[in-house]
C-alpha cells in the first residue's frame, strides 16, 4: 500500500516545493548570492527527498502494480471544461521523475561557481526552480489540460535562460526555440481539444479519453488527424527531423546548466508525450503513423550524425548528436512493441544522463579555454586528465557502448524494429533497422573524432601555459559523480529501468506482446 501521507500530499508537495523556494528567493535581495544558492539547493534537495521517497515507496509496491497509477490526487480544477487536478505516478513516469529529481540539484551544485555571464544568481536559480516545477508537473499530470499547462510552464524559464545567460547568438536561439515550441504546443492544444470534442468526452483525463476513444467508433481519418496534431507538438519538442533546427541553436547558445536541463529533461517531454498520451489514447492512429515516425526517426539518426560530422564547435556537435539519439528513441516508439517502448524510455533516461554530462563537460571546457572550437582544442588529457577521461567515458557511453547506459536505448530499439507491432509494415521497418544500425557507426565516428581532436594530442601553443586551465574542481565532481555512476549502473543493471517500465508499457500496448 502507498504511504498515506504520500498518497495525499506526496506528488503535490514534490511539484510545488520548488515554486515555494522560488518565491522565498524572490523576497530576498539579490545581493545575498550565497543565500540564494543555499536556498535553491536546499529546495531542490527537499524536492528530491520527497520525490525519491515517492519513487522508492512506489518501487516497494511491487512490480505487479507498477502498471497502475499511484498516489493519485484527483481534485476539481476548472469545472467548466472538466479539467481536473489529476496527478499520479506509474512505471513510465517514475524513471523520468527520478531523472529530473537528480539532475536539477546537480545543476544547482554546478552553478555554485559557474554562474554564467551576466551573473545574477538569484534570477538564474529562480528560473531553474520554476523549470523544476514545470518538468515534474509534466511528468505527473494525468489530465491533458494540466499537462499542457505544465508543458508550457517549462517554456518560459528556458527561454530566458538561453536569452539572458546564453552565448553570442542567444537572441536568435531563444526566439527560435520559443517560436518553434509555441507553434508545436498550439497544434498540440488543438488536438487535445479536438480529441475532447470528437469523443464527446466529459473528462480530459488521459485514462478517460483512452477509454472513450476505445469505446467509440471514431473515423480513422479523424484519429489520424488528431494524432498528427500531437505528433507535431511532441515531435517539435523531441525534436524529430525535420523539426529539429531549433535544437542545435538552443543547445549551443544556452548556458551550460540550460543545456544540461534541456538535454536531460526537456527533450524528454516530447517523447514522454508520445508514450504517455499519443500512443495509449490513439493506438490505431499510432499504427498508421508508425511508418512516418519511424522513417523520420531513422532519417534523424543519419542526418544528426552527418550534421555532427560537419560541426566545428564542440557544443554544437553534442547538440546535433541529440537529434540522432532521439531518433533511436522515436524509432523505438514507432515500433509500438514493448521492447521498443521500453527501449525508448530507457533511451530517454540514458540520453539525459549522458548528454547532460557531455554538456557539463562542454561547459567546463568553455570555462577553461574560452572556446569550444574543436580545432583550437587538443590535449585536454594532458592539461586536465580527469576531465579528459570523463569526456572519453561519456563519449563511449554516448556512442552506445554496451555496458554503459546508452546501449540500452539503442540496441533494443533497433531490435524492436525487426518485428514491429502487428499492422505495421515489417519490411519497411527492417530497412529502418539496418539504417539505424549504420547510424551506430556514424555515431562512433563523430564522437571519437571529437574525442581525438579535443582530448588526445598535445595542447596547442595558444593554451600551453595557460594558468586558467585546471582539472576538475570539487563542485564539478559532486555534480558529475552521480551521473557517471548511474551511467555505469544502468549499463550493467538495465533491469532497474526496464523492469520498472515494462509492466506499464505492456499494459497499454494493444494485445501486450505482439
Amino acid at each position, binding site marked *: 500500500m502507498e504511504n498515506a501521507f504520500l498518497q495525499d500530499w506526496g506528488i503535490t508537495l514534490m511539484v510545488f516545493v520548488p515554486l515555494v523556494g522560488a518565491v522565498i528567493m524572490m523576497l530576498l535581495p539579490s545581493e545575498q548570492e550565497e543565500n540564494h544558492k543555499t536556498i535553491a539547493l536546499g529546495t531542490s534537495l527537499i524536492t528530491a527527498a520527497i520525490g525519491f521517497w515517492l519513487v522508492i515507496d512506489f518501487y516497494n509496491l511491487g512490480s505487479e502494480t507498477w502498471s497502475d497509477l499511484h498516489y493519485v490526487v484527483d481534485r476539481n480544477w476548472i469545472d467548466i471544461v472538466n479539467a481536473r487536478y489529476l496527478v499520479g505516478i506509474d512505471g513510465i513516469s517514475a524513471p523520468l521523475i527520478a531523472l529530473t529529481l537528480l539532475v536539477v540539484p546537480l545543476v544547482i551544485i554546478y552553478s555554485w561557481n559557474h554562474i554564467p555571464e551576466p551573473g545574477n544568481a538569484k534570477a538564474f536559480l529562480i528560473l531553474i526552480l520554476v523549470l523544476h516545477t514545470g518538468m515534474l508537473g509534466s511528468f505527473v499530470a494525468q489530465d491533458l489540460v494540466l499537462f499542457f*499547462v*505544465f508543458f508550457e510552464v517549462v517554456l518560459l524559464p528556458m527561454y530566458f535562460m538561453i536569452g539572458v545567460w546564453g552565448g553570442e547568438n542567444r537572441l536568435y536561439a531563444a526566439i527560435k526555440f*520559443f517560436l518553434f515550441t*509555441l507553434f508545436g504546443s498550439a497544434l498540440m492544444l488543438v488536438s487535445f481539444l479536438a480529441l475532447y470534442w470528437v469523443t464527446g468526452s466529459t473528462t480530459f483525463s488521459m485514462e478517460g479519453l483512452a477509454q472513450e476513444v476505445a469505446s467509440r467508433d471514431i473515423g480513422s481519418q479523424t484519429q489520424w488527424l488528431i494524432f498528427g496534431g500531437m505528433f507535431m507538438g511532441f515531435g517539435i519538442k523531441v525534436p524529430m527531423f525535420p523539426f529539429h533546427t531549433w535544437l542545435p541553436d538552443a543547445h549551443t547558445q544556452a548556458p551550460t546548466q540550460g543545456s544540461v536541463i534541456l538535454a536531460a529533461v526537456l527533450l524528454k517531454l516530447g517523447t514522454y508525450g508520445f508514450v504517455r498520451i499519443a500512443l495509449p489514447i490513439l493506438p490505431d492512429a499510432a499504427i498508421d503513423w508508425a511508418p512516418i515516425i519511424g522513417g523520420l526517426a531513422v532519417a534523424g539518426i543519419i542526418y544528426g550524425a552527418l550534421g555532427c560530422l560537419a560541426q566545428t564547435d564542440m557544443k554544437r556537435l553534442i547538440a546535433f548528436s541529440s537529434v540522432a539519439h532521439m531518433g533511436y528513441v522515436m524509432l523505438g516508439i514507432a515500433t509500438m512493441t514493448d521492447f521498443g517502448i521500453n527501449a525508448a524510455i530507457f533511451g530517454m533516461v540514458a540520453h539525459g544522463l549522458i548528454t547532460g554530462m557531455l554538456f557539463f563537460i562542454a561547459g567546463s571546457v568553455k570555462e577553461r579555454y574560452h572556446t569550444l572550437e574543436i580545432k583550437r582544442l587538443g590535449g585536454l588529457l594532458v592539461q586536465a586528465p580527469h576531465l579528459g577521461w570523463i569526456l572519453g567515458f561519456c563519449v563511449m557511453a554516448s556512442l552506445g557502448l554496451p555496458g554503459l547506459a546508452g546501449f540500452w536505448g539503442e540496441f533494443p530499439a533497433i531490435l524492436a524494429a525487426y518485428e514491429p507491432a502487428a499492422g505495421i509494415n515489417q519490411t519497411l521497418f527492417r530497412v529502418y533497422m539496418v539504417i539505424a544500425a549504420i547510424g551506430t557507426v556514424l555515431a562512433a565516428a563523430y564522437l571519437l573524432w571529437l574525442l581525438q581532436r579535443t582530448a588526445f594530442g598535445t595542447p596547442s601553443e595558444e593554451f600551453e601555459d595557460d594558468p586558467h586551465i585546471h582539472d576538475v574542481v570539487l563542485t564539478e565532481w559532486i555534480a558529475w559523480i552521480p551521473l557517471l555512476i548511474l551511467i555505469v549502473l544502468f549499463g550493467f543493471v538495465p533491469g532497474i529501468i526496464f523492469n520498472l517500465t515494462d509492466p506499464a508499457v505492456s499494459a497499454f500496448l494493444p494485445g501486450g506482446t505482439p
Partner: protein
Amino acid sequence: MIGANLLGSSFGGVLAQIEQTPFVRPHIDWHAVAPELVLLAGGALVTVVDVIGLEKVRRIIPSLTSLVFLAAFVPVLTLWNQQGDLPRVMWDGAYVVDNYSLVLKGLFLLSGYVIVLLSTNYMLEGDYYDSEYYQLISASVLGMLVMTSARDLVSIFVAIELVSIPAYLMAAWRKRDLKSNEAGLKYMLMGVFASALLLYGMSLLYGMAASTKLTDIAAALSIGESKPIFTLAIVFTVVGFGFKVSAVPFHTWAPDTYEGAPTPLTAFLAVASKAAGFVALLNVVIIGFPGQADVVEPLMWVLAAATMTVGNLIAIRQTNIVRMLAYSGVAQAGYMLAPLAVFGDRPGQATSAVVTYLVIYAAMNLGAFAVVIIAARKTGSGEISSYGGLFNYAPGLTVAMTLFLFSLAGIPPVGGWYAKFEIFRVLTDGGSGAGVSLAIIAAVNSVFAAFYYLAILKQMWFMPAPDGDHSRISIPPSLQAALGVTVFVTIVTGSVLIGPLSDITKLADLALP
C-alpha cells in the same frame, strides 16, 4: 423600406395616448441600483470637496475617488450575495441586474480603481487639473455600470455616451501638448461619427420593433427571414459598437489616441472603455439579434478575423510601446469578437467566454500599462528600445512585464492562456466550419503575436540599457499597489483560480429571455 402601403398616423393620436395614461412612478429597486447611486453620490462628493477645498484637498482627491470606487463595490457584493433575488428587473425590463451585470460592474469598478492608482502620480506630477479628471473618470465608470444593466436602446445609448464624452475630454487632457490635442480630436470626431451611425441603425431597429427594448427587438427580428432593412440596421449598430471595441476597420482612432492621450487614460480606454463597448455589443447581439444570427455571425466572423490579423500584423512593426499595446489591444479585441461569430447555437457559452476574456484582459493589459507608466518615469520615452537593460536595473518590473506579455501571448500558466482557451473552446465546440476556421486563424495569429511580445522581452532581458543608466526606478506606492493587484490577478486567473473564475463567469443568464 417598409412597405409603402403602410400609412403613418397623426402625432395627435400619440399625444392623446399620453394624456390617457396617468403617470405612475415605476418601481425602483434601490438596492439594485445602489452601485450606480453610490458612484453618483461619490462623484458628486468629490466635486463638492474639490470646490470647497481647492488646492488644499488636491492630494486627497485620488484617494477619495478610489474609495468611492471601492464603496460602490460593496453593493455589488451584497447583490451578488443575494443570488436568490436575481435577476432584479426594473422599468419593464429595460434595466436588469443579474449575475452578468454584477460581474461586469465589479470588473469596471476595480478597473476604475486601478486606473485611479495609475493616474495618481501621473496627474500629481504633471501640470494638469487633476480633480476634474477624477470626476470625469467617475462619470465614465458610472456610464459603464449603467451599460451592464441596460437592456434598452435608449439606456444603452445614454450609457455609451456617458462613457465616451468624459473620455473625449480626458484624451485631450494635456492641453498644451499637440499630440494630446490631436488624440482628443480624433477620438471625439470618430466617436461622435460612430455614435451617429449607431443611432441611425438604432432608429431603424426601433422602427422595426416599435419598441426600444431589446427583447422586443429580438421578437421583431425573429421572423425567420432576413430583410435588407434588418441587415442595414444591424450593420450600422454593430459599426457603432465596433468603434468602441476598436474592431478593424473601425479601429483607426485607437493607436493615435492611445499614443497621444495621457498614458493612464490610454489604459482606461484600452481596458474599461473597450470592455464597455463589448458589454454593449453583447447586450445587443445576444439579447437583440439571435433571430438574425445568419447575418450577425458572418459579420462577426469577418470582423474578428480582420481584427485579430490586422492588429497583429501592424503591431509587429511598431516601435512605440503604447502603439504596440494599442494594436495588440486591437488584436485582442479580435479574439473577443470571435465567440460572437458562433453565438447563435450557444449564446451562453459565447457570453461567458467573452466575459472571461474581459476579466483577464483587464488585469493583464492594465498591468502592462502600469509597467509602461513606471518605466516612462525613468526613461521618459515610450520607445521599445528604451526598455533595454530593464532586467538589470529593475528585475522585479521586468518579471512583472514578462508575466503580462506572456499572458497577452496566451502562454500558461498566466491568465491569458485560459482566456484564449475559452475562446477556442467555444469556436471548436460543435465543429462548425466557420468556428473551426476562425479557431485556426486565431491560432496562427497567436504565433504572430508572439513575435512582437518577444521583441519587448528581448529588449528588457537581453539588450543593454541604451544610455547605460542603471540607476534604479523608484515606484510610488500607488503604482506598486496597481502592479501588485494586476500581477496577482494575472497569475491566479491562469492557474490556481481558474476554477472559481470559470464559476463566476459562467454567465448564461444574459442569454435567457
